[in-house]
Each structure stands twice: as C-alpha cells, then as structure tokens.
C-alpha cells in the first residue's frame, strides 16, 4: 500500500471542509459543514415525508389490538409520541414554507452531489446482501470491496483486489474459526 500518488495529493478545494484560519476569534467554531445548497425543495419533501410517516404510524397505533387508550395500556404512549412527532413534522414543514414565503434563510439542506455514485453504492450493498448467502462470504465480500472502492473513486485495481481478498479471508477465518460466528461458506470450500 505504498503507491497512491493521487490520494496523497492535495485535494481541490478544502478537503477537511474547515480551515482553522477562518475561525472567528470570538466564536466557537461551528462543527457544521457549509449548508451551501440553494435547494428549497429538499426540506419541503422531507417535511411532507415526515408528516406522512407520522400519520401512517398513527393509523398503526389505532390498529393495536387493545381496548381504549388507558394510560397504562399499550396504545397510550405510542399515541402520545407519534402525535408529538406528527405535530413537530408539521412545524418543520411550516418553518420551510414560511422561510420561502418571507424569502429568509431556509432550513439547512446540503447539496446532493455525487448522487450517481451514492446510488450505485446503495445498489452494490443490496446486491451484496442478497448474494452473501448463496455465493459465500469470501467471494461476495472480495467482489463487493473492489466494486465499492472503485465507486468511491479508487483507481488502484490491483491494490483493491489484494486488500479486498485479504480482508475477506482474514475476517472469514477469524470469525468462523476463532470466534465461532457463522458465516456462509458458499461455493468455495474453505
């Protein structure tokens, strides 16, 4: 793992996201990365989504098979929590609506850049989850590792394969032999 000219090169922009020089002397630095998105739609979608989730779960509370809403019963506390959740979701939604209407600062929403890569990564994870059992731990993990590293921008195929296969074998052997945790053996008899 010695050849990695591209990763050690200084990244464009500010890789850490923060620069100590920019910290105001009188201000404790905010740990937040910059919320430099102009998206006003994002929080609206999130708000609507939260309200819908709250309402759907509330119907599930009413579906609990118990009589009445006596405070010590199984329905009262979820009702309390989910009513509050739904109410606060409405508040969140209204905050964003009001901010848009008054043209003040809208709720924080970070930029959705690199979304294709993120979507591919989620897809890889799902495939990995499904093939883990039938294909076996070592093979599935090695392949997933290489693919995931490549999706995240690695261009050192040989290194990734070596690390991936090594990691998969190491984990498989330690977990199945030393720790007694079951992992699927799959097509390779090990």
């Amino acid at each position: 793992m010695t050849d990695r000219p591209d990763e050690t090169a200084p990244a464009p922009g500010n890789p850490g996201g923060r620069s100590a020089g920019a910290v105001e002397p009188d201000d404790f630095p905010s740990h937040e990365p910059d919320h430099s998105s102009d998206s006003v739609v994002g929080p609206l979608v999130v708000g609507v989504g939260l309200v819908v989730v709250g309402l759907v779960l509330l119907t599930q509370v009413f579906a609990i098979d118990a009589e009445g809403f006596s405070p010590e019963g199984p329905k009262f506390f979820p009702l309390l929590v989910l009513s509050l959740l739904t109410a606060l979701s409405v508040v969140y939604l209204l905050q964003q609506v009001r901010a848009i209407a008054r043209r003040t600062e809208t709720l924080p929403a970070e930029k959705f850049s690199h979304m294709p890569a993120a979507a591919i990564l989620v897809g890889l994870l799902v495939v990995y989850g499904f093939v883990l059992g039938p294909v076996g731990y070592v093979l599935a993990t090695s392949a997933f590792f290489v693919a995931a590293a490549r999706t995240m921008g690695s261009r050192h195929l040989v290194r990734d394969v070596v690390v991936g296969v090594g990691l998969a074998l190491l984990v498989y052997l330690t977990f199945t032999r030393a720790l007694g945790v079951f992992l699927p053996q799959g097509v390779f008899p090990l």
Partner: protein
Amino acid sequence: MSSFADLLGGFATVLSPENLLFAVIGVTLGTLVGVLPGIGPAVTIALLLPVTYGFESPIPAFIMFAGIYYGAMYGGSTTSILLNTPGESASVATAIEGHEMAKRGHARAALATAAIGSFVAALISTALLALVAKPIGQLAVSFRATDYFALMVLALVTVTALVGSSLVRGLISLLLGITVGFIGLDGISGQPRLTFDSPTLFNGIDEVLLIIGLFAIGETLYVLVKGRTRPGQVTPLEPVKGGFMWLSRDQWRRSWGPWVRGAGFGFPFGVLPSGGAELPTFLSYSYEKNRSRGKQEFGKGAIEGVAGPEAANNASFSGVLVPLLTLGLPTSATAAVMLAAFKIFNLQPGPQLFDKEPDLVWALIASLFVGNVMLLALNLPLIRVWVKVLEIPRPVLYAGILVFATLGIYSVSGTVTDVLIAYGIGVVGFLMRQFDFPIAPTILGAILGPELENQFRRALNVANGDLSVFVTRPLSLAILLLAAAALLLPYLPRVIARVRGEDPEKARKLAFADED
C-alpha cells in the same frame, strides 16, 4: 474505605492476563477508530457487540469497550492536531489550537499535552467515579418509577436540546428513535405494535442494526456525497526537540493548570445529562481563552487550548459512567450503545448493579486506570503508526467500513432481511445528515425508549392510571421541571439579547456537535 477495597479487587480482576489482553485490544482498536475520521466509538462498540455473544463473562467485553472509548478520545486528538479534521466531535476545540501548533512546528508538543492531559484528567475523574458511584447508587435505591421516568425524560431532553442547531429537528430525531423502540411485540401485553402485520418485525429492530445503519452506513454515504473521499494533508511531525515527554519546562508549566481545570469541567458535566463531552470541552476552551496566561496566543496555537479541552473531553467519559452504572441512564450515544451491551448479558445497570455484579463494576472502573496507562504508553511512542493510519486511502477505508458494518449485522441475525433493513436505516441516516437532523437523539431514544415506556406504565399501574402521579411526587416534579428548563436553555442567549434590546438574530442558539 470499602470502595477502595472494592477497587483493589477490581484491579486484581483486570490484571489477569486474559483481561489485560482485552484491554490492549480495546485501547488499540479505540485509538485506531479515533484516528480514522468518520467512525467513532459508538459504531466500533456496536460492530463488536456480535463478537461478544460468544463470551461467557461480560467482564472482558466491558474492559474492551472502555478501552475503545478512551482510545477513541486519544486517537481523536491526534487526527485533530495533524489533520485539522476532528476524528470525533468533542475534539473540535483541539482541532483549532492543536492544528495551529502543528503548523508552527509544535506538533509533538500539542500531541503530548493532549495525551498527558487526557491521562491526568482520566486519573482524576476515574478516582471521582470510584468515590461517588456507590453513594449515588445507594441514593437511587429509593427512586420510584415516576422518578426514573422523569430522569429519563431529563436525559433525553437535555441531549436533544444541546446537540444540533434546531430544537424542532432534534426533537423529531428523538421521537423517531423512540418510535423505532415501539416496533415489535409489546413487552407487557404481548400485542404487536407498528409491525404492519409483518412477523419479521415482531422481534423489533435490533439496536445494533440501528446504530450500524445510522452511523457506519449513513456516514459512508454522506462522505461519498460530500466528495470527501481523499485524505487531507497530514502536517508533518517535527524532529524531537528535547524536553520531558516532548514538552519543554515552560510547556509543562502552562499545561498543568488547564489539565486540572479541564478535568474539573469534564467530570460534573459528564455526570449531568448534558450530552457527553461537547459542553465541557467548549467551556474549558472558552475559559482558557479568556483567563489563561497564554490567551493572546489563542487562534494561533495556544497550548492551553489543547490541554484544557482534551482533559475535559476525557474526564467527561468517567462522568458519563456515573449515571450509566448507577441509574442505567445513558447520556451520550456511546453510553447508549454500552447500555445495549449490558442488555446482551442480561444485566440491568442501576442501583442493584453494585450489589449483584460488584466484580464487573469494579473491574470496569479499574480497567479505566489500566487502559489510560496503556494509552499513554501507546500513543506518543507509536505516533508514526497512527500517522500512517491517517494516510489510508479513503475508498479502501470506507469500503472496509461497509464490509465490517455488513459483517456486524449479518453475525447478529444471519438473515438478508436484517441486512437490508440496516441499509435502509443507513439511507435514512444519510438523509438526516443532509438535512441537519442530529443522530445522537435517535440512538438514545431507541435504546432508552422501551425502558421509558416501561417506567411510565409501571408508575401508572401503581396509580391506577392517574396521570397526576408524575407531578404529585416532589422529586419527579422537580426533575420534570428541570427537563422543561433544559428545553429553553439553548434559547437563553437569544432571550437575553432581546431583553437587552439587541438584535436577537445575532445571538445564535447554543449548539454543539453531534454523535459521540
């Protein structure tokens, strides 16, 4: 003096070869994950929970977990100083002054004052923990269900109010967490709740899935979308200049005051439900900035600004253990994960723990001393190793994290469904980060939620369903009023500004960082 005898017994347990081995594993792993940005102690412990299923005794597991936690703190300061990317949120203050010191060629001094300060603070605060834990435990014996309910509300509300920048979003996070805790069969009536009639959900959603999904998978997606898949520039270490343990005489003189004061800030704020280490590190930083002899150097690399916050950071962990061990009350995400670990071993932290499991408790406390000695020995001499860890290419690192996350989930359940649920939770965790919803309240809510409801219903059972039971007992009422005050506290600067006739928009809400 009986606490002292108990503590000696604890040392006897820890100093056995097997337990020492687990302490070494814990502190090494902890330092490793502390150094790596993106995974904190909470995830590491969550990933290791499945490993401990095979353990016969909980003692080695908890010795390892304590080592991980403290190790993560030491490792986090290394990253802050050399990379200016805080490895964990409580290291933000260290990142400012420490990185400036490193840029001016004082990296070794900054690393040393952080490590030795962490060590000193850990010794002080662990001694305090050993002193106060048992008396508080005895006090807690008289607590009733209403008191426990009120205490849990207080813990959840304060963490939510202090973490993140918006109370509405914090509370939504918290309530989402509590809601996750409802899923499955109700413990008292046996009714399925929020399961959508799907038997796969009858057992509820395992805490391990939630923690790994929200932290490990959510964080990886977030990092990818932010485009932070390259490591930053590591500030090179200067050659050793002499001095005792890399600190000159003057640096020793300037460091010890902040160390002790930092420990003084850290421990009490750790004991109080105040969201872990962020508040005391912030207080220590601003105290040293305004009071210490080196205040004119602040912003340009003042050693006090590293020494104080690092000490406060470490001291707060021993403090967090006080409510966790004596009341079963976690006040940070990592403490919540440790509570989940107690549940795996069928242990209920609380007043009875000191009577039922004295070996475990005192071994845990003794292991904090031992672990810190190890960390001091491990941290500075091996600094070049940790620098190498910082240079691991990010794609390899995050692909590895995903492999371990999947492994952690798969070894809990062995079903694809659970793996997919955790990935789904990971996407939710990613969205929460994108829209600035704090993660810690969700974890706390999910882990503490079921117990919160239990105490609520137990109290009401005794009172025949009379809701006034929570306000008629003075202790419960007082705690609940404190919780209400905690909700308003973050808005205090704005309120004061308004009273003084200044522009309230200028005074921002007191806010601290998230996660561990």
